[in-house]
């Protein structure tokens, strides 16, 4: 995993079938990168479904959430529509897992992204990261605490 304190490498991936989103497009905002293994995991314990509910807490800290997996843009579209997501899912599809690998968040054996979280500040520096065991949804509390700490530092 890329370590805290370094500049988050830029990338550009499909966020919808006909749109691309670059990390650098979000400069001036905090960004939460949530790498996850696969679309359509069981509903009520699903990490992206949970984050969809916690977005309003992230937004209070000027933070945007990006979900990233190796699923195709069409699969992401179907997943997003079925769960009513209000944040982009990025498709790390071709070359497969390139960005996940760049962030050190790729499981070579499964051919999927790991369950890895990064919080990036307004200047594009990685300020917090967490690698979760693949079967365990880490919840939103770690992200929220990291965002609060960043805002607290700024106040001083």
């Amino acid at each position: 995993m890329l370590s805290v304190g370094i500049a988050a490498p830029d990338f550009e991936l499909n966020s919808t079938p006909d749109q691309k989103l670059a990390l650098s497009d979000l400069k001036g905002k905090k960004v939460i990168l949530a790498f996850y293994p696969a679309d359509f995991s069981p509903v009520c314990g699903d990490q992206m479904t949970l984050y969809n509910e916690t977005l309003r807490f992230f937004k209070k800290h000027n933070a945007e959430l990006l979900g990233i997996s190796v699923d195709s843009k069409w699969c992401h579209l179907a997943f997003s529509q079925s769960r009513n997501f209000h944040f982009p899912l990025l498709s790390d599809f071709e070359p497969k897992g390139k960005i996940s690998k760049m962030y050190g968040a790729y499981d070579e054996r499964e051919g999927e992204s790991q369950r890895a979280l990064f919080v990036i500040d307004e200047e594009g520096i990685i300020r917090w990261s967490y690698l979760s065991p693949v079967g365990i949804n880490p919840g939103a509390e770690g992200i929220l605490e990291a965002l609060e700490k960043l805002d607290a530092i700024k106040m001083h």
Partner: protein
Amino acid sequence: MSTQLKPPVNKKDHIQGDPDAPIELLEYGDYQCPHCGRAYPIIKNIQKRLGKKLKFAFRNFPLTEIHPDAFNAAVAAEAAGQQKKFWEMHDIIFEHQRLLATENILMYAKETGLNMAEFSRDIQSDVFLNKVEDDIESGIRSGVNGTPSFYVNGKKYNGSWEEEEFVNFLSQLLVRI
């Protein structure tokens, strides 16, 4: 990641059972979530089996984007709580969790014997809406990662909540206390 219940169970919570029971079980649940619906009778059985040794508390964690009626159902149960009928409403909602449109909720309220004028006013009040919002925020801070999420004596329980496994876990806790 946090595994501690924040804040601990307090007087704002709805609690069933002996307040001095050695085991405190808290659920974050969503009235429209099928897993919570399946957990509902299991919890009832566990309460029966552990009797005075268990108290049970419930906080709301509606996943509103996939369960469009869950938030209103949560508010309705909280509003019923104002008339000391939280658990009656909680139960009837879980027993009919596929039918949670407003007209259904009003029918359950009537069956529960609520004062309908007060109830109709209370379900539109910010007080109960804020209670549900506060529950959600406390859930996030406690590390809720899906529904149902259970906390035993203030710590997140990640084991199985099938009846036998859960009772075994809780009973072993009793031995240690």
